[in-house]
C-alpha cells in the first residue's frame, strides 16, 4: 500500500521500528554530507529521550551529534542561523510541547527569513517534534501542535505514520532547501514496518490512499491512520467500504487526493489527535467545503479530534480525550447512515 521506493526492490527491505527508521535516515544523512549536524537535548550519550538518535554519537562524534543545553529558543535559533549559513542542522525537540519556547525562532525567523530578505537566503533546517499522547505524561508532554505550524507560510510540515515514511520524509526534508517540521508520534516509535535499505525519499507534499473504498473518505494523520484502518475493518463488516487517506503533509495539504476521494465517496470524516477546534480537521473540512467537491457531498463533514481540554494524566481519561478506533467506527457508521 505504500508508495514504491525510489531505488530498491522488495528484498532490499528490512523490518525495523519507526524510531530505527528515523535513526537510519539520520545515519545516512550524517554519512553522506559533512554539513549535516544533529542538535538537541540528550541526543548524544543518552541516545535521545525516545532513543531515536541511539548510538549515533559514537559513530560521528560530539561535533556532529551535539547535546545542547536546555535552551530551546536559543538552540533552535542556532540551528536556524547555522542552516542559513551552510550547515544542514536537524534539531530535535525532546517533546514537541517544548517548541512553545522556540516559536519565535521557528515562526518569526526561520519561516520568514527567505521572504523578508527577498529570496537572498534559504534556511534548510529540519526540526523533529515527538508528539502525541498515550504515555501518561500529562498536559505539558502530550500535545499535538502541528496545526499551529500548518498556519505558518514558509514552513513545510509533515506527520509520518509509518517507519517507511518516517525515513523517507526525513531524507526528503534534508534535500529540501526550506525549513521542514516533522511531527513524529511517540507511540509509533516502537511500531515496526518494512523499510528499504539505503537512501530513498517520500514526497513532502503528497497524501496517500492507504485503503481504497467507495462509501466514505476518512482523512487521518499520524497514529490516527492506524486507528482509522482498524475502524475501516469494522466498517467493512457492516458493509461500509471506507477509503482511508494518510494525510502525511499538513503544509501544504494535498487537496487533490482528498477531493478526488470525496467526489467518489460523497462523505468525509477527518480524524486527528490535535484539539478538534482549529485543528487540522478544520482545514481539511474547509478545503473540501470550498471546493468543487462540495456539490458531491451527501452528508455533513465530520471531525474527530481531541476533546476541549489539556491532556489528562489518568490513563482512562487520557484515552477518552483523543479519538479511538471505536469512536471513528461509530461516527463513520452514523455518518453513512445519516444518523447524526
Amino acid at each position, binding site marked *: 500500500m505504500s508508495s514504491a521506493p525510489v531505488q530498491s526492490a522488495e528484498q532490499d527491505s528490512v523490518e525495523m521500528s519507526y524510531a530505527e527508521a528515523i535513526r537510519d535516515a539520520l545515519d545516512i544523512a550524517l554519512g553522506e554530507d559533512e554539513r549535516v549536524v544533529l542538535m538537541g*537535548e*540528550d541526543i*548524544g*550519550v*543518552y*541516545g535521545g*529521550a525516545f532513543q531515536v538518535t541511539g548510538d549515533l554519537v559514537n559513530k560521528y562524534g560530539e561535533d556532529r551529534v551535539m*547535546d*545542547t*543545553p*536546555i*535552551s*530551546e*529558543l*536559543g538552540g533552535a535559533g542556532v540551528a536556524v542561523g547555522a542552516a542559513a549559513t551552510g550547515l544542514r542542522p536537524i534539531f530535535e525537540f525532546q517533546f514537541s*510541547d*517544548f517548541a512553545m*519556547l522556540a516559536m519565535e525562532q521557528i515562526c518569526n525567523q526561520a519561516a520568514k527569513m527567505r521572504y523578508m530578505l527577498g529570496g537572498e537566503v534559504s534556511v534548510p533546517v529540519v526540526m523533529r517534534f515527538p508528539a502525541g499522547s498515550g*504515555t*501518561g*505524561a*500529562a*498536559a*505539558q*508532554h502530550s500535545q499535538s501542535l502541528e496545526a499551529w505550524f500548518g498556519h505558518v507560510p514558509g514552513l513545510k510540515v509533515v506527520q509520518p505514520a509509518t517507519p517507511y515514511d518516517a525515513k523517507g520524509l526525513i531524507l526528503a526534508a534534508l534535500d529540501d532547501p526550506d525549513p521542514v517540521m516533522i511531527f513524529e508520534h511517540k507511540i509509533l516509535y516502537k511500531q515496526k514496518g518494512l523499510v528499504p535499505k539505503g537512501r530513498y525519499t517520500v514526497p513532502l507534499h503528497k497524501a496517500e490512499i492507504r485503503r481504497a473504498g467507495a462509501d466514505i473518505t476518512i482523512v487521518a494523520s499520524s497514529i490516527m491512520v492506524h486507528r482509522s484502518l482498524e475502524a475501516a475493518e469494522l466498517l467493512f463488516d457492516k458493509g461500509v467500504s471506507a477509503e482511508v487517506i494518510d494525510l502525511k503533509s499538513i503544509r501544504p495539504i494535498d487537496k487533490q487526493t482528498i477531493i478526488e476521494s470525496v467526489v467518489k465517496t460523497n462523505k468525509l470524516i477527518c480524524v486527528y489527535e490535535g484539539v478538534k477546534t482549529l485543528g487540522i480537521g478544520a482545514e481539511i473540512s474547509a478545503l473540501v467545503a470550498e471546493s468543487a467537491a462540495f456539490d458531491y457531498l451527501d452528508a455533513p463533514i465530520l471531525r474527530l479530534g481531541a*476533546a*476541549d*481540554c*489539556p491532556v*489528562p*494524566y*489518568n*490513563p*482512562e*481519561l487520557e484515552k*477518552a*480525550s483523543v479519538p479511538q478506533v471505536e469512536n471513528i467506527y461509530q461516527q463513520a457508521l452514523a455518518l453513512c447512515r445519516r444518523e447524526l
Partner: protein
Amino acid sequence: MMSKATDSRTNVPFAINAYTKEQLKEALRKMYLIRKFEEGAEDCYMRGLIHGTMHLSIGQEASAVGSCMALEESDQITSTHRGHAHCVAKGAEVSRMFAEFFGKETGYCKGRGGSMHIADVAKGNLGANGIVAGGIPIAVGAALTAKRLNTGKVVICFFGDGANNEGAFHESLNMAAVWKLPVVFVCENNQYGMSTSIERSTAVSQIATRAIAYDIPGFTVDGNDLSSVAEAVSEASSRAKSGKGPSLIECMTYRWRGHSKSDRNRYRTKEEIEDWKKKDPILRFGEVLKDHKVITDEEMKQLETDVDKEIVAAIEFAQSSPSPSLDEVTRDVYTEIDQ
C-alpha cells in the same frame, strides 16, 4: 560563587540553634517520609500500578526540607518535574500524593496532573512543572503579588542546574532583582540536566556565579547538609521579606536514581553514584541530631516505623479511592460561572 561560612562549623550547626527539638525531629521525619514515599512510588511504578513517568529525588532530601524549614506555612513555593520532596516538605499529605499518582479523584490534582504536576495550593505549593524553568517566572509573579498586596510572604523558587540555561531563568532573575521582589531562587544542582553534565552545558562552574549578572547575593552550599541549606535560605528569606530583594542559593547535591524511569545511566559512573550515596543527607542529619542530643536511637527507629506505616496506609487510601468519571474529562478546564 562563595561557600557559606556555615560549612566551617565553628561550633554548633545553624539548625540546632535556630529550631526547637520538635522542629528538628519533624525535619528528619520529613526527610524519611520523602525517601519512603519515593521508594514506595518507585515500587508501585515497577509493579505497573502507576503509569506515566516519574522523577525521583532520592538523595536530595536535604535541600527540599532545609529550604522549606525556613518558611512559614503561608509562604509559597514553585517546584519542578522532580518535585515530590518539595511537596512533602511544604506539608502535603502523602496519601493524596499517592492518590494523584494512582490517577484518583482524591489526588491533589484529581488525577489530572500526576507526578509532574503535583501541587498543594492550600499549603503554598503552587505546583511542580513539566516544563524546565517553567515555574521560575511564576514564582516571581507570586512574589509580585506578595509585594503589591503586602502579604509578607516570601516565595521559594526551586529549579535544577539544567534549568539555569533557560531564557526564563535569566528574564525572571533580572525582573525579580530590578523590582526587589521577595523570592529566593534555590538551584538544586545535582550536576546533571538529564544526561548532560554542568561542564558540557553551562559556561560557569558554579551556578551561584550567575547572581553577579543580577547584582544579587549568590551562595553555593552543601545541599546534602540540611543545616547549611536552612541557614542560607532563612537568611535569604529574611532579606527578601525585609524588602531587599532576591538571592540565588545553589545547593550542591546528587540524585541517586536515573533521571526518570527510562534512564540507562550511561553518562555517569557507578563509582560517582556510590560516592554520593555515602553522603546520604538523611543519615547525616540523623547523626547531627544524635550528636546534639536532639533525638535518640530509639526515637529514630520509632519515627521510621511510623513513616513506614503512613506510607502503607497512604497507598491503601490511594488504591481504594474512586477514579474520575470519564464524562468529566473536560471538567476544570474553565471555572464554572453562571453566564
